[in-house]
Structure formats: C-alpha cells, structure tokens
C-alpha cells in the first residue's frame, strides 16, 4: 500500500532560492510559489471529473481559487505572500478576517484538514473531531508574523528616481496605501470593485463583497499584481490606476512611480 501524504502551508507560500538548480535550493518561507500549478496537480487525480479538470487546468501557475469547491465558481487568485503580515490586520484580498481566520479557512476548507471552521456569512460550518487545526493556529500565526518582507536586492532600483516617485506616490496613492503597511484596511475600510477598476466577480463571492487595499510588501518579489494577477508589471499597475483614478500622470511620472514601488 502506498504511503499516505498530505500538503502544508509551505506548498503555496514557500519557494526555494534555486541555488542548486531551478526549483531546488534553500527554502524561502513566506515567498509565494508563483510557479506552482495547483490546479494542474489536483487535475491529476483520477476522481476529478472532466468538467472539474477543465476548470482546474484553466487556472495556471501561481493561481488558485479558494472558493471553487464552495460555490462552484472560478475566479482564481494569485497566491499571495505570507511575509510582512505583522502589522496587517486582515489577511485576505477581501479582508474577511485576521490571519488565524484565514489560516483556519484554508486549513479546513481548502487543504481539507481535520478541524473546525464556521462562518455564517459564507454558510460554512465544518466541525470535525479531533480538531487538528485549532490548537496549531497560535504558533502558526506567530511564525508568519515573524517573517519579514524581503528588501529589494541591491541595485534593483534607482534611488534618486524612486525619491521622485515617492512624492508622486504621496500625492496620488497614499490616501489608500496608508502608513507603514500601505493599506487603509487596518481601519476596516474596503473599496467597491468599481472604485478600484477591478473585476467584481471575485469580491461578489466573498463575505464583504469588496476589496481591501493591498498592503505594499516586497513588490519587487511577487509579480503579477492585483488579486487576479491582471497587472503583469508595476508599470501595468501604475497605468491601471492612472486610467481608473484619472491621475493624468505623465510618462516620466509613471516611470518615477514605478521606481518607487520597486523599492517597497
């Protein structure tokens, strides 16, 4: 009989530094594995139907839909970093709860661990005895909070240009990307999809029906951007908000702003 195995948080939220060869190296906990094709892996299962396989195989590397098995819809998210969370109040793209809320959600409803998760807003009430999730949440949270966002590599951005970009950021972006975390969500603020120019489909499937301003953490490390990965580069992000918010930034200003974001 073959050996049983299961998965862990690190599957999606760790990678390696490729120091031996691509895909093999030292662990980098908290770094999202943007190469991981979770859907394709699940689709290998002999019990998955053809229709389900088509959905799973449509997600692609670095994307996962944490609600597909709940509501049957598919609007996959980019796997987020698990670093730099110490001062971030609500962990998810739609800010439904603090870090341990989401850890429990994922552990029970996505990893299918043996434990409890209930959220009347979502109509979910799963209780399994023994609870192999709840007792681990405190230490898991402490460890995740201890993982700092990695600073940008030396020489990865032009400091003088970035300083110019900072002034542009402060004038145009800082009303939402507030404070040390770069999000106004720590006060509970959410933004309707229309306000951000984002596709509303994912938010509509969540408890809050709106998006959180994403905290700015090691932007250099985890393209693509936005919850759905629709911004392939930071230039795409800046261009998006220039259009949606009618910022009327010049090309030079957009370049400066991108340089600043590379430093964050």
């Amino acid at each position: 009989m073959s050996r049983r195995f299961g998965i862990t948080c690190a599957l999606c939220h760790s990678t390696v530094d490729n120091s031996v060869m691509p895909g093999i190296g030292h662990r980098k906990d908290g770094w999202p594995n943007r190469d991981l094709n979770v859907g394709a892996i699940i689709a290998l299962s002999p019990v998955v139907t053809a229709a389900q396989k088509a959905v799973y195989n449509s997600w692609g590397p670095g994307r996962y839909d944490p609600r597909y098995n709940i509501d049957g819809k598919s609007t996959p998210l980019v796997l987020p970093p698990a670093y730099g969370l110490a001062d971030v109040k609500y962990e998810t793209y739609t800010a439904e709860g603090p870090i341990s809320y989401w850890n429990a959600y994922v552990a029970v409803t996505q990893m299918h661990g043996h434990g409890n998760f209930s959220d009347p807003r979502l109509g979910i009430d799963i209780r399994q005895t023994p609870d192999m999730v709840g007792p681990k949440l405190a230490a898991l949270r402490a460890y995740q909070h201890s993982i700092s966002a990695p600073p940008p590599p030396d020489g990865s951005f032009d400091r003088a240009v970035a300083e110019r970009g900072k002034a542009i950021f402060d004038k145009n972006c800082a009303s939402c990307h507030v404070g040390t975390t770069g999000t106004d969500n720590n006060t509970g603020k959410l933004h309707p999809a229309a306000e951000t120019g984002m596709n509303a489909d994912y938010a509509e499937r969540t408890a809050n029906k709106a998006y959180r301003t994403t905290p700015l953490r090691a932007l250099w490390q985890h393209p693509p951007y936005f919850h759905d990965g629709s911004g392939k580069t930071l230039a795409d992000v800046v261009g998006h908000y220039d259009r949606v918010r009618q910022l009327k930034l010049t090309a030079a200003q957009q370049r400066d702003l991108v340089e600043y974001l590379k430093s964050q």
Partner: protein
Amino acid sequence: MHDQTTAETRDSAKPVDDQTGEVALRERISSAADHCRNALQMLLGLRLLADKVASLPGNLLQPWFSQDLRILADSLERRLSQAVEELEGAWVPASAGQACPLLPGLARSSTYATVTRVREGTNGYYDRACEGWPDRSVSNWRYGPGQETSTRGDGGGGRVCQGAPRAESTASDTATGAEAAKDDLSAQSLADGQQIFRFATFGDEQFWTDTLHLNEVVEKAVDPTTALKVGLKVDADVLPPGILQKVDLKSPATTVALLKMNAVVGRGRGG
C-alpha cells in the same frame, strides 16, 4: 511570553479624559517595557540556539538552526523597533491629539527613522502630530541625517514636513499590532510555528490521499522533472550531498524517495 491579559486590561483601563497626557505617557512607556521584555526573552532563545549550533557534530542540521536564528533575529528587530516607537510616542505634548499646526491632518509615523519633528514651546516635548512621513521606505532606503525627511536625533527644530499629508492617521497600524502582540515569540513557539508552516498537514491526508489518491498518481507517473515543471520545489538542505548527480530525474521512484526525505516543499509529515 507576552502577557495578553495585561495588555487587554491596560486597554480597557485607558482613561478617556487624560488632559495632560501623563497617563497615556506612562502607559506607552509601560508598553515599551513589555516589548523590551519580549525582546530579552528572545535573546535568551537565540543564545540557546547558538549553543545548539555550536555543539553539533556535523553540519547536516546547521542550516536549520541558522534559519531559526535568522527568524529570531528578524522578530527581535521588529520588537525592538516597536519598543523604540513606543518610547518615541511617549514624547507627547499637552496638545496631543491636535493636528499639526503646520500641516493639519498629517499622520503619525510608526517607524522611527523618518520621524520629522517640530519643537513645541519650551516644555521639551515635540508635537507628535508632525511625525508623519511615509516610512515604509526606511528599511530599503536608509535615509540618513540631513536627507530630505530625516531629522531624527537633531535635537529638535526639525525640518518641516513636506508634501502631501497622509489621509488618515496610522494609529491603526499600531492598533493592528494588537494581534501580533498576542504572539508568543519564544524560541519554542516560533520553532513550533515553523514546523507547522512547513510540515503540518492538519490531517488533510484524508483528502489528498484518501479522496484524490494523488499518492498513487505520483508513484506511477510523476518523475522529478515533471514535478518541477508543475512548480513543486525541492529543499536542497535535506538532500544528501551529491545525490542529484546519482539519481534518475526521469523516474517516479526518485520523486517518491524525495517525498520520503521530506525534501519536497509543502509535503507534510502529518499531524
């Protein structure tokens, strides 16, 4: 370990009418002391781990402990930064809570290195409402004295804040520290958390093995080259030296061997 009960008691006992700011000042100093105590406890953990590393006969496990040390050092830095922030926040004037007279609405910074201050009167305090520069760049840019936004340590009379103010106070940033403040940052807790993050399956074998039967698929059809193509990662630190040159990367049996070694990132050990 952080005393959560004490913190909650402190919050609930916070006076609503603290005209002089003295009570708030004492509370902040007390909170800073808490953070320092946490940091000291972590230092003990670091020393213990350092002892372990030093006593290892070989180098097989040393990367693990080195990683633990780095994690602890990161956390320690964060805690100490919090302590510094709290202490600096203790320097509130009697007018605490009022807007900066020069740039109303300017938010307070929660990172010390870019704090900009304006000396107020002769009471030796500074107006915290002017502590408001974007500070996320600190860890990356290292603004030095004399540069645009850094007037820290200049003894007062600091540069007036420039540019657009933050739209709202970042007090929420420190408020969110409430959840982080619940963390047990002892070496044991962080080591436990790392093990959970890396290796705990929470019993999800019931799905990945018992329902999806992916273990059978891997044994029959997933060689290491295929595994790497779908983005699975391999932890080099647990591989015996030179093994990659000896094994067949086109054989599913090699994948199984890697799984048994716990070398595949995200493959659990159970529990």
